[in-house]
């Protein structure tokens, strides 16, 4: 257990020696997150819109999303392995499920919290339901939806590290390899770069959010 002290086996040394691999796995990690979040945005906002029209469905759908969140990610990846096989696909599908709750919930809440008199004015002026949704409700709910997306992204950057167990790649490869080979440096590289990615994603989204502010 003298990893830290040995020359040539230091953390910095490890990073420089593996920089190509780090870059590649970071990009893989980003790809996993971005694809999963994009799908989750489409599915989640659609579901949120759906339950904003059919209030009776809201508790059930939100409950299911919440249940998914409580399943340990390792178990969920494992559950989907026989269904979707080894690789990227299983990773993305699992991550999408974890993203759903914040996106669905914030879309639903964002729409529900709009002042009803604004909606009534729109309806009274002769806007059809599609116009009211795209021109009034979604733009007004956007800051809240955006907050949900940010939560989802930051969370999923972390969970995506586990996706390497199903062969979806990403920075999790370093972590799991480090654990199995007793290589603390590998684990550290995985953990630090995952955190860095989370911070970068969050800051970028914050910028986007401020830009789209009302």
């Amino acid at each position: 257990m003298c990893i830290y002290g040995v020359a040539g086996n230091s953390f910095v040394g490890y990073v420089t020696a593996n920089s190509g691999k780090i870059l590649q796995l970071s990009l893989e990690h980003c790809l996993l997150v971005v694809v999963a979040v994009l799908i989750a945005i489409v599915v989640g906002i659609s579901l949120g819109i759906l339950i904003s029209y059919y209030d009776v469905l809201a508790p059930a759908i939100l409950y299911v999303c919440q249940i998914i969140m409580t399943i340990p990610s390792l178990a969920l990846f494992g559950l989907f392995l026989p269904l979707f096989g080894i690789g990227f696909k299983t990773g993305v599908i699992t991550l999408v499920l974890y993203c759903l709750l914040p996106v669905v919930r914030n879309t639903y809440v964002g729409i529900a919290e709009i002042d009803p008199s604004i909606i009534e004015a729109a309806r009274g002026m002769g806007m059809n339901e599609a116009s009211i949704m795209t021109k009034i409700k979604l733009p007004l709910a956007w800051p809240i939806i955006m907050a949900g997306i940010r939560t989802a992204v930051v969370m999923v950057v972390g969970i995506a590290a586990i996706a390497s167990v199903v062969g979806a790649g990403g920075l999790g490869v370093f972590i799991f390899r480090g654990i199995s080979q007793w290589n603390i440096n590998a684990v550290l590289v995985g953990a630090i770069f995952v955190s860095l990615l989370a911070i970068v994603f969050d800051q970028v989204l914050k910028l986007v959010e401020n830009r789209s502010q009302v």
Partner: protein
Amino acid sequence: MIHLNGVTKIYKNNESPAVDNLDLHITRGETCILVGPSGCGKTTTMKMINRLVTPTQGTILINGQDNREMNPVEMRQNIGYVIQEIGLFPHMTIADNVATVPREKKWPEKKIQTRVDELLHLVGLDPAEYRNRKPASLSGGQRQRVGVARALAADPDILLMDEPFGAVDPITRTHLQNQFLRLQEELKKTVVFVTHDIDEAIKMGDTIAVMREGHLIQLDSPDQILSEPKDDFVSALIGGNRAIKRLNLVKTREVIDNMPIQTLRTNSPVDTARKLLITSQLPAMPVVDENNRLIGVVQKHILSALKEQAEIADIMEKNGCVVDKGATLGDALSTMLNYGERYVIIVDENYSPCGIISFTYLLELMKNDVA
């Protein structure tokens, strides 16, 4: 234009109807005010016209056509709708707000932009300044004007207005009311106007429908309502001071029509001013600039107390007591009371003085009216 025949609305979980067997006929080009205490069914009645609320029973005809047979979205696009200021879309610019209905109607973009400018001018907002601002940066009164402009955008025949001037301070409200009256003289829309304020009803309406608990109690002209309230409820609604309220039936320009108006310039000799004031028996005189725009007022009591020689410019008060010629005598009276003066100068759209009304004159008027 609009016929309500035996219209009843019973809301779910409610035993008593919100509107009960209501018959109402609104003719083209008139302003019909629905007035009554809260919960009397006035807003429900209005919302049934554009089908935001569906009647439980009865029919509503618009231009002879049953409104249940029309496509609700198309029908609403042809009926202007104004609600309290909150109804503006906060995420859109003023121009986009006004352009809402034309966009839904898929007008060409160029025509929409021209129309937006035209409407902002119409309600007295400079398009260059306000077009690209958001509602949050406007005052309550300005927002309300945008609301009116938005409702007029596609040039509908009918306007529905739900407490349109409810959320602004009294002075702004008077101003907006006068502006709307002036607009309506030009536009001649058929207006259904909901308010709980009987004074507003008297001022704005051609006919007033007094409602209580879903029933129509009295449908008459403002004059009739004031002079012959049908029952105790209507009298109570009108309240006391009926003589003062009748002042709201008369516009200032109707009484100043044959009144000669004399004005002073800042360099006029004080002696001339004194002579003019004494012969005219008026308590004050307007002072104007070279463009005949009002810049101040000289009061009689100040002039007569004056011992030494002075310039008009020195004794002139800059902020005189002024109302627009579209205002009513009631507005004139409350302006006098607000300023604590015994006169009010009437100005036209160029801010040129066109008349002056004294407190004594109003007192005479009320005395004759009561007698």
